[in-house]
């Protein structure tokens, strides 16, 4: 494997000693084929053991190593050195408070995710002694949205979330929508309170950045617009065709 010189500029922040973050440069030689996460691991092992960052699987499945690489939200394990020239700037994910170095505080996202009830709320009790049945067409309706790995790159890309932190955000809405689209599920009404709220789908002004940066091609922007359309249909149905309202 051929080596190349790599210069990394990493945003450092130590809550015990620093008032605010600052950049630190690391210059080292690495194999061409490496990703940014490999470089961070090498720095931690042999240059500076105090560098903090999250990572786990190294294969774009766990969603832990999201960070800003040259200003774009990326998984560090999917950011290949061959795609970068010059100094590579590595910062923690935008729009999240910095806990330490590249580690962010993600409590806000975790709380929002719980609010959309991202689990099966059965329409009726499961069939006695049998499994739920679902056709390939029914699976296809929501399958794309199941690929979300909760990496929060979409939150770092979304200016709306940066400006209005109350906004429920792309991944949480996409995951709520995923369960609404599931033929086994009957929990849409319970989720609508969050999804159809002002701070839910309606806060989105369709920048579309969430779908562009998603490493799993989930298309949260599409999910959010679909929630808007369905909520609009709900409203018209309730106001213009009250006889179609379900008995509560």
């Amino acid at each position, binding site marked *: 494997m051929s080596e190349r010189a790599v210069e990394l500029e990493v945003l450092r922040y130590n809550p015990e000693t620093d008032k605010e973050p600052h950049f630190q440069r690391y210059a080292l030689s690495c194999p061409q084929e490496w990703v940014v996460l490999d470089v961070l691991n090498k720095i931690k092992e042999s240059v500076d053991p105090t560098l903090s960052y999250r990572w786990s699987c190294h294969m774009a499945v766990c969603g832990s190593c999201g960070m800003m690489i040259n200003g774009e939200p990326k998984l560090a394990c999917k950011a290949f050195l061959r795609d970068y020239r010059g100094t590579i700037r590595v910062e923690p994910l935008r729009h999240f408070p*910095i*806990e330490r170095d590249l580690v962010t505080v993600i409590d806000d996202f975790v709380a929002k995710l719980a609010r959309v009830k991202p689990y099966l709320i059965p329409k009726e009790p499961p069939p006695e002694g049998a499994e739920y049945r679902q056709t390939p067409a029914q699976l296809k309706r929501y399958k794309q949205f199941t690929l979300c790995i909760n990496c929060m790159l979409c939150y770092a890309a979304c200016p709306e979330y940066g400006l209005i932190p109350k906004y429920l955000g792309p991944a949480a809405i996409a995951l709520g929508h995923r369960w609404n689209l599931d033929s086994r599920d009957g929990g849409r009404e319970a989720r609508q309170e969050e999804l159809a709220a002002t701070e839910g789908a309606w806060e989105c002004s369709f920048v*579309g*950045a969430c779908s562009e940066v998603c490493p799993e091609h989930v298309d949260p*922007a599409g999910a959010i617009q679909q929630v808007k*359309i369905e909520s609009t249909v709900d409203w018209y149905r309730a106001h213009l065709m009250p006889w179609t309202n379900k008995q509560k």
Partner: protein
Amino acid sequence: MSRAPYERPITSEWIFRHPRYLRYMVREFSCLFIGGWTLLMVWGLHQLSQGPAAWAAFLELLRSPASVGFHLLTLAFALYHSTTWFNLTPKALPVPFIAAAHYAGWAALSVVILALAL
């Protein structure tokens, strides 16, 4: 170990961080021109109600170089707004040929309006 999470301030720097944000802001900005043009049309209606002299003055105003420039700019922004918006429709309505249907509707309406105008 003490916790002291650092919150980075949000500045308008994000608009220039990636071309996609600039494209988005241009799309949002286009509404100022389209809104301005709509107000101009309302003003025209008002002038029409004020008699032939006022209407003639309004038509004269439309022929001024500033007005022609404004109309060309508005046309460019309206085209940009419409095409970017139509291209996004398949995300909101995942139905076959939805974007093409929008373009077809646009073309058909334009033909009707042209036929009425000429």
